[in-house]
């Protein structure tokens, strides 16, 4: 099965014209599998962290969303302990007009603005709601421990 031209084009652009703070490289032996690094946005609890993610483009991409998850441990109300991300555009709100680039930008934005009202990691979201200051501190500590 050959690689659709759109994937080749997206990959070329990701490499030649990268988004600031985001690095995505395809695997040598599987061009549908990407190693992604996202820098924690400044003035967020994840500042200074480098978060590794894996991204996989399923057979039906772009008709279905890419599969993406965090590999680096992260304390975030919308990311569970397996690294799965609760983001509407990755699920029901996926549109084939979206691209790898836009998805990675959304994830970067999610790091900058955690949304405990739409949680995936329930305990983290609860902690976030109960005591945001404490939760932010934990997130910073985790960033230091796992993502630096």
């Amino acid at each position, binding site marked *: 099965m050959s690689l*659709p*031209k*759109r994937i080749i*084009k*997206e990959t070329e652009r990701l490499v030649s014209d990268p988004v600031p703070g985001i690095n995505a490289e395809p695997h040598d032996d599987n061009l549908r599998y990407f190693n992604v690094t996202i820098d924690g946005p400044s003035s967020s609890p994840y500042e200074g962290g480098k978060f590794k993610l894996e991204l996989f483009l399923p057979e039906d991409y*772009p*008709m279905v969303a890419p599969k993406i998850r965090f590999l680096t441990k992260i304390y975030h109300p919308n990311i*569970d*302990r*397996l*690294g799965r991300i609760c983001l509407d555009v990755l699920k*029901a*709100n996926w*549109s*084939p*007009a979206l*691209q790898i680039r836009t998805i990675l930008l959304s994830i970067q934005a999610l790091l900058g603005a955690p949304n405990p009202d739409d949680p995936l990691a329930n305990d983290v979201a609860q902690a976030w709601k109960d005591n945001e200051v404490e939760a932010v501190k934990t997130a910073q500590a985790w960033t230091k421990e796992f993502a630096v």
Partner: protein
Amino acid sequence: MPETETYHSETIYPVIASDIAMQGTKTIDSLNRLVDYSSLDYIDVPGHLLCPICQYPFVNPYTTKCGHTFCKECLIQALEPNVDLSVECRCPIDRRPLNRDYVEDIFPAPKIISNMVNDLVAYCPNKSRGCQFQDQRWLLQRHIKDVCDYALISCGGIKEDGSVCSQPTHRKFIMEERRIQRDYLLYGYSMLPPTNARLMYGSSNIHTKNNIKDSASSSESVETKDKSNSLKFDQPSKNNLHLNAIKDTKLYQKLASQDDMPLLELQEDIQIPCVHQESDCANGCGIKITKATKEAHNNIGCTKVMLSCEYCELQVAKPKLNLHFEQCPEMTISCSAKAYGCTWIGIRRDLEAEHQSKCHFIAMVPFLSKQDKKIELLEKENKSLRYHLDNISQSLANLPSFGNINRNDSVSSDSTTYSIETTESLGALPVLPVDLSMTNASISHMLMENDRLRADLDHLTTSLAELEMKQNTLFMQENFRNQEVMHSIKGMINTLRQQIHYILLEHRAFTTNSSNPVHIINQSSKVASTNPELLRRRLSDITRQDVKL
């Protein structure tokens, strides 16, 4: 431009550009099948003409009722209803609901859009085979069908056994052959012009005629390697047979009478020998070639084509040139220890004569390369260890949430293969005993499972307590409400009692005081006139209470 309109017609089938035998393809419909617009190499495309889904210039653009344009194919795919119809189909750009089956929802884009995309310039799809042609994409179909030298068309030549060959080959080989045959039919010999002259055939016609006189001298002046040479040797015999066979036919007469007939009209009628027939290389290298492979053979494969080395001027066979470059004494090279830091540059002879004995870097090479190998080995080892570690930590991360036994199995089998691999490749590496790692994994699995169950239990207990509390409040609320209703009923009963009391009093007064019937009527009407008001007030009280409830 009416022709444009025809070319911009409805469906374009995704067929690989020119790999179709094209004999007899003359209708516009089949022309449309020749070029797959979605795989062209476009030159300079404005962003507005790119489909948001496939990111390529629109193919058969369709517009939605919300005003967005996509390729028809892409849009239809994006709006494919999912199996249980649970998710509404929406516009990929603004998410407005769309139904692909409604003509008012999606419809062909305005003609100007398709004209604009069809006017985009792209390379000929046969670029990879060597065609440099570029034109507006709707014109490429024409190019491939009629002109492109690198389009695959079926040979159609007569094989040695007399049958017609149907193998595909590049158009240029067929065209060359046809030109040769035509010249033979007309003049009895061929002066094959260089490849592209076919396009200017009309003028070269006269040119060829003039050359008949001094044909001997001109064919001698052509270089020995050239194609005309091989013609002289391997063409005439077969051709003369062919010519004799054809000489009396109507075609020959037609050709002979119409010298200036455009080549394109003649092509289809001229019979040619199959271009796939093998013959010996004219240079005498002993390799069998066909007319189709001759050019490539002469350029890279023929051992008899000699080239002189650009450094030492030695005559070297083409395929051996690269080999020669590895040892040519006059070639400029850098020191063999360049990778380790030597900056010396000079010709190879000097390297061997003087530099080699002086260079400190070269002396270090054996040691340094050993180090390199060691580093490489360590890196490999490190990589596999990291992989192993990743696997373990991943399995740990996965276990508590899913209790996925299969996962665990695959991980431990991974680690098994891994340890075998390491013993093989890395020799004395300490290796985790497989059994131990498996028990460890299962123990940790059990622990995780335990944790998970405990967490679940906690969760259940809290939710049970929550539920109980909710139930209690509900119950209390219900209770309050009932009490209030009871109060209001009590109030009503009280008023009723008062009224009965009043009526009883009246009745008593009536029986004791008088027996006058008029008075009775007056009295009772008095009661009737006072009571409604009282009643109304009571009633409104009650309704107010009802509202409150």
